[in-house]
């Protein structure tokens, strides 16, 4: 499935979207992301699945769209 990063998180992914295969739920995805990108553990962000903010574990279909959204403060 596609994982979309925003703001400063794109510096960690080195691109805007990465693809991760074979995860069944959000917890498993978080674990896999932190393993591949340890710098994520230092960042504040919320996760949206199919454009809804999700805070609990949910099962993920292969076609789910996941987005990692950090807060912005500039103005």
């Amino acid at each position, binding site marked *: 499935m596609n994982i*979309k990063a*925003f*703001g*400063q998180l794109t510096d960690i992914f080195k691109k*805007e979207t990465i693809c991760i295969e074979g995860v069944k739920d959000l917890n498993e995805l978080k674990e896999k992301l932190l393993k591949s990108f340890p710098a994520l553990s*230092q*960042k*504040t962000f*919320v996760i*949206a699945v199919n*454009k*809804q*903010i999700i*805070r609990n574990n949910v099962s993920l279909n292969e076609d789910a769209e996941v*987005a990692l*959204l*950090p*807060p*912005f*403060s*500039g*103005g």
Partner: protein
Amino acid sequence: MNENERYQRQVSLKEFGEKGQEKLRNAKVFIAGAGGLGCPALLYLAASGVGCIGIADDDFVSLNNLHRQILFSTEDIGKPKVLVAKKKINQLNPEVNIVGYQQRLTNLNAFNILKEYDVIIDGTDNFPVKYMLNDASVLLGKPLVYGAVSKFEGQVGIFNVADEKKTKCNYRDLFPQPPTEQILNCSEEGVLGTLTGIIGAMQANETIKLLTGIGVPLINQLLIYNSLNNDSYTIEITENKKAYHSPKDEEEFIKMDYDWFCFSDENIKVIDAAEFQKMLIEKDALFIDVRENDEMPVVSFSHEKIPLSQFENEIKNINQNTIVLFCQTGKRSLQAAQMLLKDGAKDKKVYRLKDGILSLQD
């Protein structure tokens, strides 16, 4: 001057019409910050005929503002932003009543100022003020048109307005706690003036939609716009009340220390002038002035000088465990404290003087 002619092009939109114009004329909108977001929002709302616009900012125009803060000209450098804004808006549309607040918006003055307005626009550039403005809007029950940018991306959303399910979300439902890591602002990481222009204009546009009831405003939603590839991504915000404790009334709100809330770390403590004087007498700490050389006033107590511009390189030479950072007004000592934190000063106790050297002189 024929007022009908001034607004003729928007009044002729059948969705907007005379009724829309009347609603704008009767509206009072408050804009927090006359910066990259506030300037375009202010220009468009004033041009469109919003009856009363309040604008708060304690800053002065500087040369590096001009590429994005399009209300100001080269000749305005050094002048208070709010005064220049009032003059320019009067020239643009004398029908608009501009109320200028040449002061920093804080939790001590926000309630009295904001309660006069129908809609609040967030044109601020840091987390303490963003959380403060959010909490004030929640307590006052006022719509907050939020905006923020980071590099080439911007966020826009509307908080505290009930959707069709009668749900009202706010910024804390999205981000219950401020980030603990350092998030750079425009002055540090840079920004294109066109991006703040786009996001500020979107905030003005959402405000017009809210006031006139046209279209589908971004209620309980966050839109993220990427100016490099023109992608826009809109997500739904849901209630998350259990995740945070925001002030429950005006009294609690006034007692909040938003700087502390946003930058508190067990190793960084904010101290006031009295605590600073006490620590000076105790002589246990290393006092560091992070102002640039030659800045006035010169202080007479024993201290080291490490200007912020050299601070990051000098961190390795700071061996003391108890450190008190101070600057002119409290902004740079915060940045220095964050640099220390980033560098892993976990074994050190870091204090910073809240309102800077100027607070010692009162």
